[in-house]
């Protein structure tokens, strides 16, 4: 796979929760670069700081110190450099959660097109793209259904469609396959890989799932808040 520009550049990022007696150092001086097209697994024992790192890259958690550059844009350097972090997320970052977190009052298709709505797409264009994506993920037959009626795998694929809808270049996933059986998990990973290649995106996935390790370009280990590249 062709390796492209650096999309995620984390420089000397540290994060601690609490202070004094209760201080927890979740990340200590982490440096990480991810390039377009790369599919990376973030591994490590529980409490090693995986989610913390993902949330910092996703701009929903303030680092204690360090620098974060996303797609060439410096976004954090001791403080946030942009005031419109949500717009940044809308345009550049796609989240895939362990719990799919679809909005219960919208249909599968609406959950996907909502993102495009927010991004300012014309309604028909948004609907078209949503159906196209769902079709691609083989859940278009469930498009008019509310999330409560979807199976775990279907919901997860709708969530992936939502994360990819606005063609973000940075896709962050926290144990996206935890709720799926191993065959489905592998299918989802294959799909993510394919989409990443097409959209020149990078994927950073937290996972404990050894069965899908062969789907990654790189495995990164976190231990006690430090990266140990393998």
């Amino acid at each position, binding site marked *: 796979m062709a390796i492209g520009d650096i999309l995620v550049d984390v420089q000397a990022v540290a994060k601690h929760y609490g202070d004094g007696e209760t201080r927890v150092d979740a990340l200590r001086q982490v440096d990480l670069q991810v390039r377009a097209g790369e599919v990376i697994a973030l591994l490590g024992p529980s409490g090693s700081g995986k*989610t913390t790192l993902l*949330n910092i890259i*996703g701009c*929903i*958690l303030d680092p204690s110190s360090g620098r974060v550059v996303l797609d060439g844009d410096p976004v954090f350097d001791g403080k946030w450099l942009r005031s419109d972090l*949500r*717009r*940044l*997320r*809308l*345009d550049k970052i796609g*989240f895939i*959660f*362990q*719990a799919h*977190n679809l*909005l*219960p*009052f*919208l249909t599968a298709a*609406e959950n996907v*097109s*909502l*993102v495009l*709505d*927010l*991004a300012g797409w014309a*309604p028909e264009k948004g609907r078209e793209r949503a159906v196209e994506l769902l079709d691609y993920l083989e859940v278009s037959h469930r498009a008019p259904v*509310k999330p409560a009626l979807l199976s775990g795998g279907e919901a997860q694929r709708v969530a992936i469609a*939502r994360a990819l809808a606005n063609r973000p270049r940075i896709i962050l996933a*926290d144990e996206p396959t935890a709720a799926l059986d191993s065959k489905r998990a592998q299918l989802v990973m294959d799909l993510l890989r394919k989409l990443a290649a097409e959209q020149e995106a990078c994927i950073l996935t937290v996972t404990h799932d050894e069965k899908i390790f062969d789907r990654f370009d790189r495995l990164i280990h976190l231990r006690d808040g430090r990266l140990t590249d393998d």
Partner: protein
Amino acid sequence: MNLALKDIRHGLFRFVLTCFGLGLLMTVVLAMIGIYNGLVADALAVVKAPAAEVWVVEAGTKGPFAEASSIPADSRDTVARMPGVAEAGAINYQTVEAPFLDRALRLYVIGYETGRPGGPQIIAEGRGIGTSHFELVADRKTGLVLGDTIRLGRNRFSVVGLVEGAMNSGGDPAVYMTLADAMALQTELAPADQRVQAARGAGAVKSASVAAVIVRVTPGADVDLLTATLRQWKHLAALSQTEQENILLASVVDKARRQIGLFLGILLAVSAVVIALIIYTMTMEKLKQIATLKLIGAPDRTIIGLIVQQSLILGTAGWGIGLVLILLVKDVFPRRVVLEPFNVAVLAGIIVVVCLAASGLGVRAALKVDPATALGG
């Protein structure tokens, strides 16, 4: 894509139930406003009925509605001859209880001189009282109909006409009869010892007394001057129509009015708290979804829109349901429920303000929520 409407449709049954509950609460509020207005309007009905300008009453009293007032029946002649007086009529009030069919009717008997002020202004059905004895014009709320006869004292009276909205400040429906009939009735119904006195001739003066003389002035006449002149008689006092209305509101129905007014205040406060609580809880339940919205990049505008629109829809629906319900049931109340468009509009205003304030609380919590909470489980 309107998230507020989609969310409402998703939980439609619950939302409708909430609206309906709120609607019932609004019905109570509107009923209370209507009862309050009705109380005031009913209280004034009896004073407004004769369309008088000046009330001549017993000296040292506040008139027949506030306390007992008794002046000689011939005061009317004296008053009628005064300059500035166009018409004057003696009038008499008493409350009687009379058996009718199988129940006891409580009636407010107004005796007036036919052809002089004091009678009913508008006859809704039938005719006014003629010159003959033992005729009644009754308020519809008495339940009497044209042609009914009812025994009052020693005589049977027949109903020749019906009016609407005539009652005393306690809500007892009124019947009109001639002053002569009314005075005879009063004597018949007086306690036994008084009747003995009257038979001996001692009470003769008393029995020839009336409650008040009502006056309509000639166009351009000075009401203040007239009342001042009337007060010079040591056994008479005079009140202008406005004074009479104020006395009624200030002394007679004042306690009832304050009682209902205070209750209405409490009811409004309770409603405000209930509305605020509903809206706040509605928002709190959605915090995780709001976190998800933030995570996928929804701006504050979208989130505020969701909360404010839903609370306004809820408030409006509650108000509308309340209004429809009260209009359906208001005539079932035994006393008048009077709703002015102004009251209904003010209530709408209050609801909107409460909804906005409550959604303000919700919005504050929603804007504070950390998008990362969407990620946990």
